[in-house]
């Protein structure tokens, strides 16, 4: 019998090993950096985000957008900047490694991270090290909470949740609402919690709330059937676009056609290879940036981005672009030079960002200002997918 028991033990052990293998499976960290070398006296900006892995579309968009802004800013001939962008695969541990290697490189300002979970880990480090941090898109409040040196270019998750509920209520988009969110993800859970509390105040009727985790993000028939049976006519999806694409496909197979309302994580669904964009027809999302906007700044950026990368920029690219401009403006205002050390820059940048007269007109918002907490103030735009492209929604704020 001893061997039998040993075999069971080894099975369990093997299972454990494989779970570990599954969790950490992925490429070894590679530096697909975008380094724009400049002669001496350039301020060194480090960037961190997923350039590979499931969230790669966000990181590469931010990196591309930031690179365009950097070239423009350097061409102005004033302050010179150098950007090095490191990959973190949307993994907190790899993100901290990327942060450390940027520190070794001599980073003076951090533009990162792109995603929330790594952002929480890295911002704790940059707070300790006194390196000024502006995240393009890590939207959880946990990224900025209690850290005076960390600022956001994107809305915080609570703001997204609140804004979504307000938008749905004001535009009467749905009377019975179902929510499907990822309860293993800080981003998704954060938006959900604020949405649900705001929805109560707005008399929105939430009829079904179901969850999934990264490990069970395959079968959504149960969640969709629950929503369908509850009579939901709008499904709120505070999740990333990969599971959202599965939800859209499975709802279609069930012949269930509610309205779908997403947040900024939904951005990216149209650029997924081989995705049938018909399925996303009519999907609504709140995002601060519209590539089809007609204002001169956006038109110029979209043209430049398309020429360089052969795709239409999403809001993450715009966030990356705005980050570099915000850093540039703040550096100019605070009189920062390349020979200052990171801690000195940090204090001056905090003062500049929170100053009453500091505001930025960017791609993702006019007249953006920052609170001392690190939160940005700007208005979201409602977008809807029509004929495979984002179009501004009617009657939005």
């Amino acid at each position, binding site marked *: *019998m*001893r*061997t*039998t*028991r040993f075999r*069971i033990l*080894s*099975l369990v052990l*093997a*299972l454990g*090993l*494989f*779970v570990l*293998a*599954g969790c950490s*499976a*992925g*490429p070894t960290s590679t530096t697909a950096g975008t380094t724009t070398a400049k002669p001496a006296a350039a301020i060194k900006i480090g960037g961190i985000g997923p350039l*590979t*892995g*499931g969230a*790669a*579309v966000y990181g590469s968009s931010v990196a591309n957008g930031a690179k365009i802004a950097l070239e423009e800013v350097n061409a102005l001939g004033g302050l010179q900047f150098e950007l090095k962008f490191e990959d973190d*695969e949307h993994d907190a541990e790899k993100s901290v490694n990327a942060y450390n290697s940027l520190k070794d490189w001599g980073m003076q300002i951090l533009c990162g991270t792109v995603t929330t979970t790594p952002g929480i880990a890295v911002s704790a480090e940059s707070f300790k090290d006194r390196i000024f941090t502006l995240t393009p898109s890590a939207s959880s409040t946990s990224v900025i909470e209690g850290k005076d040196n960390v600022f956001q270019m994107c809305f915080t998750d609570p703001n997204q949740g609140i804004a979504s509920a307000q938008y749905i209520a004001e535009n009467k988009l749905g009377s019975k609402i179902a929510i499907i969110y990822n*309860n293993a993800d800080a981003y998704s859970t954060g938006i959900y919690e604020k949405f649900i509390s705001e929805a109560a105040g707005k008399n929105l009727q939430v009829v079904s709330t*179901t*969850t*999934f*985790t990264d*490990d*069970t993000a*395959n*079968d959504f*028939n*149960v*969640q969709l*059937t*629950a929503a369908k*049976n509850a009579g939901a006519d709008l499904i709120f999806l505070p999740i990333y676009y*990969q599971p959202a*694409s*599965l939800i859209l*496909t*499975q709802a279609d*197979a*069930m*012949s269930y056609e509610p309205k779908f309302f997403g947040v900024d994580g939904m951005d990216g669904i149209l650029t*997924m*290879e*081989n*995705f*049938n964009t018909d399925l996303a027809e009519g999907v609504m999302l709140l995002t601060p940036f519209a590539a089809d906007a007609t204002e001169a700044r956006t038109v110029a950026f979209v043209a430049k981005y398309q020429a360089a990368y052969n795709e239409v920029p999403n809001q993450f690219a715009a966030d990356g672009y705005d980050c570099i401009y915000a850093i540039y403006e703040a550096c100019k205002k605070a009189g920062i030079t390349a020979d200052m050390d990171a801690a000195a820059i940090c204090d001056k940048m905090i003062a500049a960002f929170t100053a009453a007269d500091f505001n930025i007109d960017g791609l993702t918002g006019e007249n953006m200002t920052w609170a001392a907490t690190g939160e940005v103030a700007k208005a979201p735009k409602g977008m809807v997918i029509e004929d495979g492209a984002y179009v501004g929604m009617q009657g939005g704020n």
Partner: protein
Amino acid sequence: MTFLSYLVSGLSLGSIYAIIALGYTMVYGIAKMLNFAHGDVIMIGGYMSFVATAHLGWPPLASVLLAMLVCTVLGVVIEQLAYKPLRAAPSLAVLITAIGVSYFLQNAALLIWSSNPKSFTSVVRLPSLKLFDGQLTISSVALVTILACVAIIIGLTFIISKTKIGKAMRAVSEDKAAAQLMGINVNQTISVTFAIGSALAAIAGVLLCSAYPILMPTTGAMPGIKAFTAAVFGGIGSIPGAFWGGLLLGLIEIFGKAYISTQLSDAIVFSILILVLLVRPTGLMGRKISEKV
């Protein structure tokens, strides 16, 4: 009606687990090793079918055949290169090698197809089945998956119980040394086992991606673990065990989600596995082996 719709989802998911579990259980039964690279062969099958349909414009059925062919060759090559030299080595060494192969396949896929998720177009392009005045909608993929699973289990049972190679498999499984003395080519039998298991993995991969149309280098990992669980649940080494284990696991997962909690579905699945193993250490249909110490 809702119950029926959950039942179909559960059976469909369970059928996919069962097809994958058959691959685990056959290799274990005959070569006495856990082929942890099996889940990643599924992923390769998915990518093959994706490349054939989306890039080369092949018809769906041809893409499935291509996936089966590539995976069969891949399975045999893996066996020859990675496992055969270790046949006399301790089982732990083979296990670690299998995990290494799994990593190798995932990273190779990452290099070839990049990490960006691909949206898989279902190979089953029939309309959904509507019953009871449209109250119950059954997707065609779910039906095809369940039918494919039943067909595979019947075919496999036939091969193992009626054909010569099946007889050889049973003999090798029973006693490798004695089988060799009886003139059975053990190495060839093991290769055939890997070939069949990998062809099944290709079918499972295509069905998995058709039902849940997202394809990434890690696509096979989690279904692989679940199917391995199903194989242990049913009794590893037993073919009917893998079938029932897979089906039950799929049903428990879906019903657990539907009637208990969407948050705890995996916890429920694995708790049941632990309970079953406590009561029946060899799984539901595993043979009681009393080995001499």
